[in-house]
Structures are given as structure tokens and as C-alpha cells.
């Protein structure tokens, strides 16, 4: 009898939940799929901050006007724990929660499976920060996905920029250490290797590790033994400090450089002086901000007390694109929104000018930043145009 009561209780509770899921009138639900816990929580946090800032600004101004009615935005946040399978599950959860579209995930290893789920369930998705090409390409057909877009450039471009950066810094014998269990790292490492070899500098060491590894001494020892004079580390801000420190400890004296996954000030906190003076490619630099970007930076600093990083800026742009599309769609319907998204060819955001040429991948410039540890910031070095 107890068991029957238990079952009845469960059913009642479930119906209460079902009831509470009914959409409120005059509200647009937008889902956020972010890495709030796991290996790169600062990325998720920045994303969430920018999202909440944007939604707050829009709602304070009275909401968005669609088809003659005013709607406020309701943000539904899901933590994907920086795990691929959780990102897919979170995407599914947002879909069943009835969001109009989904922003995120950021890391490509999470964005790619989430994009599969979004496409299968016909839910529009914009990833702010995922640069791996596979996010917008259908795994089965190889053709671009219909429902997935992004606010950043792709690694086919960034890898080339990184390779050219290495050559410009004087590297003649490049080596790479990357996370083979993560789509982004592997993807950009491959583009880098191909480009740098085309430029005439064969890679002397191409070592791998798995996400979560903390000890890279075996691989780094091999790299040093290979005689490399440059080390490309296309890895996330929480792992790079360990890699740089261990490399220096083992006696590596060459040039170390990286990619947009470095772009977080936490890197400086974790790394210390070992990372001073290193370069990396990324999406935007606060130093050279346009007036529009400066407004965003000011608002972000006012609300959160720190300068927004590239994830935050790109998230802000992703929301901007989403809202533009919703307004142009004229109705609260996923298909209409997707159509409108596809029609956007040019968007001016805080991270610069995004040009969409038929696919979900915008063409944008990249910037190279330099790590300034004593100043606790990244300084602008140069821009690379596509």
C-alpha cells in the first residue's frame, strides 16, 4: 500500500510540474546552454552574465515588439557541466521546455552534440563561441545544418591565423600539444599543422592528452627532445597554465602561443609569470573597441565589476542576432525565426562586423593579444583580416 501511495504521489508531482511548464502569455523563452560547472566554469559564467545583461536591457526597455505585440524575454538556463553528453541532454531539455531558440553551448566539444540535437528537433541554435566547423555541419550528410548558427569565426580561418602568427614570431620547428578528447582542440591543431607545413615548417612533435589530465610531463619531455622551438597550445584557460609551467620546468625555452580558448583573465591568475608575454589569437580586444562595444563594456563592468571577455561579448552578439531575427520573423515560431536568421547577411555587433554568406558561419577578423601578467590584462597586438 505504501508503494501505491508512493506511485500516486509521483504522478501528482509530475502533473504539477507539467502544469507549471505552460507558457506565460507575452513571453518569449530563450534557452541558454552553458558550461557553468566542469572544467571551464569561467566561460559559462561570462556567457551567463552577458545573457542576463542583454535580457535585462531588453526587458527594461519594454521588451521586443513582434507582430504588433510586445514580448519580454524569459531566459531558461541549463548547465551542460562541460560534458558532451550533458550538453546534448541539456539541449533536449531546453527543447522540451519549449524555448524559441537556444544560445550556446560555447565549447565546441559541447556545441557539436548540442547542435545535432537542435537540428534533429528543429530548434534554432546560435553558439557564441564555438569555432570548430563541425558545429554547423550535419554529421551525416556533410552539408550545412539548417538550424544552427554561430557568432564567431571558424577554425578553418583561426588555425591559419595561428600558424601565420607562429611563423611571424620566428618559430621554425613548431610543436603542438592538444587535447584529443575535445573537438575544438583537435580541429584547430589539425588546421594549424596543415597550414604551417604548407608554409614550409614541418611539425616536429604533435602530442596529445585527454581532457582532465593534469600531468603533461611525458608529452612535454618528448617535445623538448624533438628540438622544437615553438609550442602551440590550443587548449582551454584552465589547462594551459599547467602546460606552460610544466614546459618551463622541464627546460623548454621556446616560444609558446595559443588560440581563443586562452581568452580568459583567469589564465593569468592560474599561470603567473610563466605566461607573461605570450601571444594568442582571439575574437575581440577591449582596447580597440568601437563606440557600440564600449557601451556594452561599460554596462558589463557596471553590473559585474570586471571587463567582459570574448565569450561575454560574443554571447551578447548572439542574443543581438537572435532578437533581430525574431523581430524580422514577425511571429513566435521556430521556423519563421530560422528563415529570418538565414536572411541576415550583415550584423554589426560588439565584436565587430559579422558577414554571413549563406551559411551559419560569419566571416570576421581575428585579433592577436599578448598576455600582460603584471598588468593583469591582455593587450592588443595586431588584427588578422579574413
Amino acid at each position: 500500500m505504501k508503494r501505491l501511495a508512493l506511485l500516486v504521489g509521483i504522478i501528482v508531482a509530475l502533473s504539477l510540474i507539467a502544469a507549471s511548464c505552460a507558457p506565460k502569455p507575452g513571453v518569449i523563452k530563450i534557452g541558454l546552454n552553458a558550461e557553468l560547472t566542469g572544467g571551464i566554469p569561467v566561460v559559462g559564467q561570462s556567457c551567463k552574465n552577458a545573457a542576463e545583461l542583454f535580457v535585462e536591457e531588453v526587458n527594461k526597455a519594454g521588451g521586443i515588439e513582434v507582430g504588433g505585440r510586445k514580448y519580454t524575454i524569459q531566459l531558461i538556463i541549463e548547465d551542460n557541466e562541460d560534458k558532451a553528453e550533458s550538453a546534448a541532454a541539456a539541449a533536449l531539455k531546453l527543447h522540451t521546455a519549449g524555448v524559441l531558440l537556444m544560445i550556446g553551448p560555447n565549447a565546441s566539444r559541447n556545441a557539436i552534440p548540442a547542435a545535432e540535437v537542435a537540428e534533429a528537433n528543429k530548434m534554432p541554435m546560435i553558439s557564441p563561441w564555438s569555432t570548430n566547423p563541425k558545429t554547423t555541419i550535419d554529421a551525416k550528410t556533410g552539408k550545412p545544418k539548417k538550424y544552427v548558427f554561430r557568432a564567431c569565426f571558424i577554425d578553418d580561418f583561426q588555425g591559419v591565423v595561428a600558424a601565420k602568427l607562429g611563423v611571424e614570431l620566428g618559430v621554425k620547428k613548431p610543436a603542438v600539444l592538444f587535447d584529443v578528447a575535445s573537438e575544438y582542440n583537435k580541429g584547430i591543431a589539425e588546421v594549424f599543422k596543415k597550414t604551417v607545413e604548407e608554409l614550409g615548417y614541418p611539425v616536429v612533435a604533435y602530442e596529445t592528452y585527454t581532457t582532465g589530465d593534469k600531468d603533461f610531463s611525458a608529452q612535454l619531455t618528448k617535445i623538448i627532445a624533438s628540438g622544437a622551438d615553438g609550442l602551440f597550445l590550443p587548449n582551454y584557460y584552465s589547462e594551459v597554465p599547467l602546460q606552460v609551467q610544466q614546459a618551463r620546468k622541464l627546460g623548454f625555452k621556446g616560444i609558446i602561443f595559443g588560440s581563443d580558448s586562452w581568452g580568459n583573465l583567469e589564465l593569468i591568475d592560474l599561470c603567473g609569470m610563466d605566461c607573461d608575454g605570450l601571444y594568442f589569437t582571439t575574437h575581440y580586444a577591449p582596447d580597440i573597441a568601437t563606440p557600440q562595444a564600449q557601451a556594452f563594456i561599460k554596462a558589463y563592468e557596471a553590473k559585474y565589476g570586471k571587463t567582459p571577455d570574448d565569450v561575454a561579448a560574443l554571447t551578447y552578439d548572439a542574443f543581438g542576432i537572435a532578437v533581430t531575427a525574431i523581430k524580422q520573423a514577425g511571429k513566435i515560431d521556430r521556423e519563421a525565426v530560422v528563415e529570418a536568421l538565414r536572411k541576415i547577411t550583415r550584423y554589426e555587433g560588439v565584436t565587430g562586423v559579422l558577414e554571413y554568406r549563406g551559411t551559419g558561419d560569419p566571416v570576421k577578423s581575428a585579433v592577436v593579444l599578448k598576455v600582460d601578467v603584471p598588468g593583469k590584462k591582455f593587450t592588443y597586438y595586431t588584427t588578422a583580416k579574413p
Partner: protein
Amino acid sequence: MQTFFQQILNALQLGSVYALIALGYSMVYGIITLINFAHGDIFMVSTYVAFFVGSALMAYAFKLPGIITFLLTMLASMFFTAFLAVIIERFAYRPLRKAPRVSAVITALGVGLFLENFTLATIGPHPRFLPPIIPVHRFTIWGIATSNIQLIIIFVSAIVMFLLDTIVRRTMVGMAMRAISWDKFTVPLMGVPMDRIISITFALGASIAAVGGTLYGFVYTIDPYMGIRIGWWAFISAVIGGIGNIRGAMLGGYLLGLVEIFTPVILPSSTYRDFVAFSLLLLLLIFRPYGLLGRPVTMKV
């Protein structure tokens, strides 16, 4: 050749930490035949304790010499972790001594999960480093690059293991521990306070893990989920060496350190590490189920 010795040194560093944690698994299994799956997470908690104590000492204490701060941090971590382990044993494991074994294992898993997520929920997911209590000096000996921290890790671990071995073999408490692991039913009849000895075992195992934790926090970042992977590897070390056997745990730890370092050297990718480690384990279990230094247990029909 020089690279080879470099790698050996790397392996020793890792292996020391694994060995320290494996000891906890072996000791607990030896005394109450329970695989304490929460041990990896106890290790994780110890690193966080070291982090907070170390940061506090650096910030508020007067300029104490690095060694003193280091020792204080380690002792604080050991004390607190031992305390935590005793509490866990008292409230989660002791009630289940008479229950079917599987309940105890599930409880251990539950405690582990709880520790991980509680740390995650209260302290946050951001990876951290221990503050530089002892400033890092890098130098080369005979062409092998090393640092003072690395040598400290290797030597401190060795000293602690030696101390433990002495305790187990030369003191009354150690004798009681060995006695209980040999025969659980008769020994209490001889006047040995079983509950107290078991608590001491847990405390000892945890404090040794805390030593490993403090040392680990100096060179690697700590985060709430690190206990999972390290816990499992230390567990394999304990089993390979012969679970329940203290010297076996030490041996297993160093062996696994070697596996972790040399797998990416010999095989093309680092993703083979898990595969190699677990296959070794499986093979060993098939051909020598009691581990390298374990002894077979007879069962009365």
C-alpha cells in the same frame, strides 16, 4: 637516455601520489573488507583544506619561513581529513557492518558523490592552485630538469610511507590492525577494541592521503571532480599490489605512475592510458587474482 631518466623522475612524482592514496584503500579494505570508494574524494577534500589553510597562512600570518608554513598546512590538512574520515566511518559505514556488503559499497559511492558535489556547490567549480608557499626553484641535475617541489614530493612521500610501514609493523596499534585484518571474529574476543582500531585505520589512511593532497596541490590544479580519476587510479594501484597489503599498495602506486608516464611515450596517443592500466589489471586478476603481493584467502565450505 637522458629523456628516459627524465621520464622516470616524472613517473616517480606521480607514482608517489598514487601510492599515498592507494594506501588508504588497502588499509580500509584490509580491516573491514570494504572498498572505500569515497577515498578519492577524501583526497580531494584534503587538497581544498590545504588550499584554504595555505592561503590563510600566507595572507594573515607573519612571514614564516616557507617550510614552517608548508608543514603547518600539511598538518592541518591531515588533521581535518582524518577527522572527516572518522566521521564518515562512524555514521555511514559502522551501521552497515552487519548488512550485506553491497549496501556498504553503495553507501561508499554515495558518500563520494556527496563529497564531490557538496564541494562543487559550496566552493565552486573553478580550478585552483595552492599558493606558492615554497617558491619554485627549477634546476637541472645531470641534464635532467627538475624542481625543488618535485624532489620534495618524492622524498616526503617516501618518508611518510616508511613511517606508516613502521607503524604497522612495529607498534601495538599496527599489530592490532594486522590482527583484525587476519581474523575479524576472534580478535575482539582477545580484548582488542575493534571499533577504535578501525577508526584509527580510517584516520591514518586519510591523513596519508592528505599528505598526498597537499603535495599534489602544489604542482597541479585542484577542482571538485579530481578525486574521481585519481581515486580510480589509486584503487587500481591498490588492487594490483594486492588489496589489503600495505607494501603492495606502495608498489602498485609506483607501477601505475610508470604506466601513466610511459604509455604516451610508447603508444601513439595518450588516450590509451586507461586501456593499458585496466587491461593490466584485468590480466593480473585473471592470472594472479590476489595482486602482486597479496595472499590467497581460503573459504570454508
